[in-house]
């Protein structure tokens, strides 16, 4: 029995490089198959018209062209959509962080029945779907004259991301020992200075993860701008993209170029923050 075991171990050690190699190859294959739709979007956006609709599609653009990109920036006002997206997403992120910081810190430091109940309520709010909330929101905003303003969209989108931000930041704050703040206070540092100089810097990773996820969620939000605004020049990217692909016969060359442009900042941001986002999600998403 033991001899067999050691022979098996020796075998396993000898095969270890092969196993690693096989598993990595398999992992690459999985990622490649999974990400194929994204690849297909990007290379399709670089194809010109006959090649784009060829019965036998080419796996990479044989005659790559930026014509669709030039067209959408020159004629379809894509720059304005992107600018609106930036305004809305940055505003949502700022408003969310301001509101979430205080609440998350307080909910992390005070443990009573009421704060526990509040966390439960916030978790429940976190899962409410915008397509259902938008009917009453539209009517309410219409009654107070906020319809057709980006402000309305910023407020509505903040309701979608604020609960999530509070819950994740609360986890970050809870991990910082309260003794650090107390030590600073014994040395004569006022509580709120201690918060900004000690607690906040220590929660930096949490803030990077939360603000990037909040930004990405706000950047992708579609239902609220679609329903709360009908002026085209106020609309962000998703509504602009919808105007290209929503119809039965989509304007594919422009739609694919727009989708590629619109998604580029997301992929760049994610590539920079991948490790932090993954560890932040695994540590705080459910708790």
């Amino acid at each position, binding site marked *: 029995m033991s001899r067999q075991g050691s022979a098996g171990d020796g075998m396993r050690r000898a095969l270890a490089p092969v196993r690693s190699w096989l598993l990595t190859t398999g992992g690459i294959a999985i990622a490649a198959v*999974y990400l194929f739709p994204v690849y297909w979007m990007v290379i399709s956006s670089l194809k010109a018209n006959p090649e784009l609709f060829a019965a036998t599609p080419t796996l990479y653009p044989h005659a790559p062209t930026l014509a669709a990109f030039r067209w959408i920036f020159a004629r379809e006002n894509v720059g304005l959509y992107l600018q609106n997206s930036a305004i809305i997403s940055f505003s949502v992120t700022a408003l969310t962080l301001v509101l979430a910081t205080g609440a998350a810190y307080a909910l992390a430091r005070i443990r009573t029945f009421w704060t526990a109940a509040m966390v439960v309520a916030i*978790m429940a709010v976190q899962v409410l*779907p915008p397509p*259902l909330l938008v009917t009453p929101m539209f009517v309410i905003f219409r009654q107070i004259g906020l319809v057709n303003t980006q402000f309305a969209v910023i407020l509505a989108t903040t309701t979608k991301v604020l609960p999530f931000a*509070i819950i994740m930041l609360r986890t970050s704050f809870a991990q910082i020992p309260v003794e650090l703040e107390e030590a600073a206070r014994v040395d004569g540092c006022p509580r709120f200075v201690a918060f900004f100089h000690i607690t906040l810097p220590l929660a930096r990773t949490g803030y990077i993860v939360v603000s990037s996820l909040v930004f990405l969620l706000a950047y992708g939000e579609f239902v609220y701008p679609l329903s709360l605004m009908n002026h085209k020049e106020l609309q962000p990217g998703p509504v602009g993209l919808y105007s290209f692909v929503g119809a039965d016969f989509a304007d594919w060359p422009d739609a694919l170029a727009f*989708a590629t442009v619109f998604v580029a900042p997301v992929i760049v941001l994610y590539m920079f923050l991948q490790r932090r986002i993954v560890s932040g999600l695994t540590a705080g998403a459910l708790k």
Partner: protein
Amino acid sequence: MSQPLRHTLDATPWRMSRDRFLDSSTIWMLLIGAAALFLLLLVGYPIAYNLVMSVQEVTLGNLPSFSRPWVGLQNYRQLLADPLFLLVAKNTLVFTVANVAVQFVLGLGLALYFQLSFPASSFLRGLVLVGWMLPPLVIGAVWKWLLGSDSGFVNYALQGLGLISGKIYWLADPSLSLLAVTIANIWFGVPFNMILLAAGLAGIPADIYEAAALDGAGPVRRFIWITLPLLRPTIYALLSLTTVYTMRAFDLIYTMTHGGPLDSSNIFPVWSYRMSFELFDFGGGAAIATAMFALVLVVALAYVRSVNAERPM
């Protein structure tokens, strides 16, 4: 309140009044209150208002006013009598069950695979997570392009593999449209399932597996008797979250099929939205939304319970 702070603070006589204010329970209440008030005004009030609208007749004409005709449960009765109701209910059920089940199985498979330690495993897992970060509209656009009947890659690939002979009208055939949007939404949701299950798997202590291996338990038995039971809280939380997030598939469906053709891919959130914003029957839209809120909150409660079971805080 906040006892851990008090015991050192009360002993410091030099405290200034500003400090006293910043230590008092008032500041805590203000900090929580700002966010709570925001959510109360912009989520709580709309939900209550939605309930009210669901028993009123709300049209474009009386939208700005507060006095509208009360119609009791008529909106609800009309929904139940609507010939679409059964179809939409069936679609919602099929869509939700298929999404939750397939996303879970694929997510678990990927989580287990990337948990095997091999070079670049966490980087490759991170690449797969990209899918979940993309704007839903982009995903809808990409899948509409991939599933196109004439120049879509999926038809081309299936024909190349000899699996189909003619074109498949994924989005235009009423018997296939629900499948098409399900495929796209599964693609969207799998990374989320994967990452949360990976977190759950990482939380299982390695020595339990080692002890089981010493006792002669093979990989399959270790999976059934150790992994699954210890993963149970994560699984419950995940299944309830995925169920609720399926309601957000609105963006994908609206982009790809608009709920059609012939309502074959229509689900409740889409129906509610179209009732309000295309038929301008806000009372009807509100009635569907109210019923869905009740359902979502039940599932959310299950989610919160399983999270608290996982990590008592």
